């Protein structure tokens, strides 16, 4: 995969993930519940005990993760440092595992789906895959 293509994708995905988790964060901080319409389980998921870890809404580290990935992509477009794919792969791997755990919780424990949370799982997984491709198969 070409670095430029990969970083354009990462830039877009991290920006979308940032907005998504920022939306969830603001909703959590405002004490509101995202409006996902009648058929979704957003209320079930975002009010569940799993929506916070040690009192911190999990959307906050999510927002910071996407913000950091976004800024790293911008840095790549600015200076093209070679270490960025390695850093992003290392960072996106735990994020991917965490997302996988959250998807598992939604499907099998909470038994409800929050579309905003699933979107975040999609963006973090994609960022991990693209970062790994750039690290191991990146071409100029």
């Amino acid at each position, binding site marked *: 995969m070409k670095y430029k293509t990969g970083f354009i994708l990462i830039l877009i995905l991290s920006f979308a993930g940032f907005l998504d988790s920022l*939306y969830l964060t603001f909703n959590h901080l405002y004490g509101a519940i995202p409006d996902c319409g009648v058929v979704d389980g957003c209320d079930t998921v975002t009010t569940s005990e799993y929506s916070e870890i040690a009192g911190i809404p999990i959307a906050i580290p999510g927002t910071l993760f996407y913000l950091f990935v976004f800024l790293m992509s911008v840095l790549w477009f600015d200076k093209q440092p070679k270490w960025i794919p390695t850093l992003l792969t290392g960072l996106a791997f735990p994020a991917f595992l965490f997302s996988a755990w959250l998807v598992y919780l939604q499907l099998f424990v909470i038994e409800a789906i929050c579309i905003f949370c699933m979107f975040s799982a999609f963006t973090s997984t994609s960022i991990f895959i693209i970062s790994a491709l750039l690290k191991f198969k990146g071409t100029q």
Partner: protein
Amino acid sequence: MNKSLLIWASAIILLVVSGYVVYSVVKSDSANAQSPAQSERQAEPTAEPSAHYTSVSSTNPEHLEIDIRWVKGNPEGDIQIVKFSDFQCPACNIVRPHLDRIVNERDDVYVVYKHFPLRGSHMYALPAAQAAEAAGRQGNFWDMHNKIFADQSQWSRETGQQVMNRFRRYASELDLNSEQFEADMLSDEVMRIVMNDQQEGGNLGVRSVPGVFVNGKTIPNYRIYNDFLNAVLEHK
């Protein structure tokens, strides 16, 4: 202009502007959610009211004109809070203590409970509504309502048979006539009442639960009581 500066300035501006837009969307959802005006209500006829409706004596024109069955607080109060609710919805359970507290703390409020079971995603929401209505027939709606909500996280994970047995157990704990309770729970009349509530909610634009209206205006769902109270007082 320096290329680096251009790249970083664009990125920061993009982040700040989009972050502000997201913030504004959430804030406006939280603070200014307006209900569809009553005049926008569809003129679909609702099911014929049964003999079990309650009348409230408030004459405030902002109050929703709906069939009212279950009321807490002062029915002459100036503040009408209507909650379209689903017994299996966690957010409905979160707002429940807020409603109890505001009724206890203020004498100008009445709260109306309306059924809005999301049968698509909550498989026991309808039987729970039927159980509460059936208990209501024997004068115990609110007690049954409290019991059902109190154990929501437990029965939500049970099998259908376990849930029905649980509701029967609640009925016996409330000293209800069990045969009557059983018959009412499965009756067409009770089903019609629940569907009537849901239809009224749909006509008012309820799309998710709980749908809370304060003097005809929707407010968002708040986890924190003071936020809820402020939203109520804004629409007073």
